């Protein structure tokens, strides 16, 4: 028998160290998740002891539920904010990576939204988007728009207004990560391209963009997942209204579970949400071979 090193013998200690945390995860994430999987097949109402297995009834209901389909539509509109914020963040990072006046200050300013309190920020945006005397509509009227949209009070525009807030929110974080990626690019490559006569546009799209593609991939995946799950921003601004026009899937789950107490059905919707996130991630993982260069 080989003598084990001191470090190997301490292996159990490692487990002991992560045990408290693992217990937490087990108790508060994994068990509830498994529990909700079981709930999917029941008619469980919160606090109500009368529970029975209803088989696939919840799924039948899901596919006939118009509110569910509309919440998918609004989730899709909400997801638009991810690529848009990525492109904007990339552009800003490019500019701030060069020599600009007040670089540090500008970087800080762009990052500020990400670290500020979500609810406070939500109120500021509500004021900005106020339809009759908010600054945004005042400005639109000033440039000649007769009837600017009602934003958070307009079922056709509310989701896009939320998108704007989300983009503004996520941009700073994306920009910081992009900045780090840009710093990694060796100046030799860029100089060589310049000497060969490449224009700025060519350098940006043929050299820099491919070189930061792993970062883009990371931000895209995490961004889509986070956006799909996000909840507090919309809850703070519109609570899913007006007329349900900002009720994305995660809000619909919340409403079904905690307003209507239909835990069984809410579990079904949330597992559907999980399946969608999973599917998108898998598709991206497969698709990455075409455009991500490590």
């Amino acid at each position: 028998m080989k003598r084990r090193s001191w470090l190997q013998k301490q292996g159990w200690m490692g487990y002991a160290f992560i045990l408290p945390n693992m217990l937490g995860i087990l108790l508060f994430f994994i068990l509830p998740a498994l529990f909700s999987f079981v709930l999917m097949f029941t008619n469980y109402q919160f606090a109500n002891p009368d529970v029975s297995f209803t088989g696939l009834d919840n799924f039948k209901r899901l596919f006939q539920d118009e509110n569910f389909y509309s919440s998918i539509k609004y989730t899709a509109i909400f997801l638009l904010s991810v690529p848009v914020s990525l492109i904007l963040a990339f552009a800003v990072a490019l500019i701030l990576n060069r020599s600009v006046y007040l670089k540090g200050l500008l970087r800080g300013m762009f990052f500020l939204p990400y670290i500020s309190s979500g609810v406070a920020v939500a109120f500021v945006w509500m004021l900005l988007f106020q339809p009759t005397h908010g600054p945004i509509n005042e400005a639109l009227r000033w440039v000649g728009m007769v009837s600017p949209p009602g934003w958070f009070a307009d079922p056709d525009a509310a989701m896009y207004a939320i998108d704007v807030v989300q983009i503004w929110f996520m941009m700073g974080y994306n920009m910081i990560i992009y900045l780090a990626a840009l710093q990694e690019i060796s100046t030799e490559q860029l100089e060589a391209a310049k000497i060969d006569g490449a224009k700025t546009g060519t350098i940006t799209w043929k050299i820099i963009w491919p070189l930061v593609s792993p970062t883009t991939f990371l931000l895209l995946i995490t961004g889509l997942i986070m956006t799909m799950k996000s909840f507090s921003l919309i809850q703070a601004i519109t609570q899913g209204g007006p007329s349900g026009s900002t009720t994305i899937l995660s809000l619909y789950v919340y409403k079904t579970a905690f307003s209507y107490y239909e835990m069984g059905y809410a579990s079904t919707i949330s597992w559907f949400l999980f399946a969608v996130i999973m599917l998108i991630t898998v598709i991206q993982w497969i698709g990455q071979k075409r455009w991500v260069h490590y």
Partner: protein
Amino acid sequence: MRRSKWLVTVVCFLITALVIGGCSGGAGGNTNGNKPNTDPAPTDKPAEKVKLKLWGAVPAEAGPQAVVEAWNAENPDIEVEYIRFVNDDPGNLKLDTALMTGQDADLYMNYQLTRLQKRVDAGLAVDLSTLTDYKVDEQMGPDAAQWKIADKYYGLPTKKNMAFIWLNKQKLDEAGLPVPPIDWTWSDLQQYAAKLKKDNVYGLLQHEAAYTATLDGTIAGLGVTKADGTSNFDNPLWKQNFEILHNMMFKDKSTPEYSEQLTSKMPVDTMFLKGEAAMLTAGEFIFRNANNLKDYPHDFQIAFAAIPRVNKEQTDFKYPGGLGDVLSINAKSKNQEAAWKFAQWYADGGMLPMASGGRIPSSKSVDSKQAIDLMLKGVEDKYDRESLNNVVFGKFESFQLSVPQQVIDARKEEFEKYFLNKQDIDTTLKNMAKRHQEFIK
């Protein structure tokens, strides 16, 4: 190597088992421990102090604290602690969770019939007929029966509920308008609002809690469903009501446009008390602020009008009100007898300190004049007594809304589209009826 791996696994499981077992063991111990409580206390030991927790949605400083302190001074053997919850979805969720465990809530207030219904379904409310022979109907009057579930009481309706319109008497006088009669209609209201409107003064504001008062009173009279069992949400009275309100928003501009009220989260009660509106649809809960002249100073008199009917021909209109603040006992509480003792004391007069906030006890054991005097103490001259007596303390045929939250939400989504000019009135009514129909199917 193998042995150590096993050891780790075993230790992990042991700790997990200990933690989980510890929790459930504690709970089990408690259930055993509470048994002697129902038996008479042994004579050789001094009776243990019973601790009760009372959940309600009124801020502690607006009365409940005084109520609880008075009880604790009188009853050294039963100590009551007041816990405030906010009467919204997260707040009620918190309460329901506490009720389920049976640890932190012995008594609680219900404010909506649908919520009480859910609690009864979940077995979280004691059937009061099993406790003593307290005659709820006799004590609380005929309106109490609206809170019966399957012909049984699961809570004491402790206070008079009221929804009505607050009037700025000074502005009414300036416009030469009398205090409207009890049986006025929405057309009258529209005319009043148009005449009372000025620059920076709205004719009418509506509190969110009373926004659908006429709609609900209409459907309470007509029936939620028609004779053939289909939804009654497309009735012509609603149509007329919606159209009048729409005209007030967009033609007369005597009430805020819906989008305005939605996005600026108007503090309607503050605006009314500041004189920025001549009329306010709300309820008795505004007394809390209206009686507080320090934070809400105003020098005008306030008069009252009933919630208007849709039109003169409407015969079976019912008024939102009746009784409210339904005090229930948690069926999982260990101290139900003590809780029942407190509940009766509260309903039969213990709640008087809450009167200054507009909560008038419904029990006949309480002299309602005393409660009214308490409510108006120091602000007698701020109210028009005649309309106060006729409207706030008047007798109306009332109802409790028993439409599930899902249907209420669907209805709101549809009428929002109408008031945001995204959908015409006929489509709105059709969709409301359709979505209601889908739910009751």
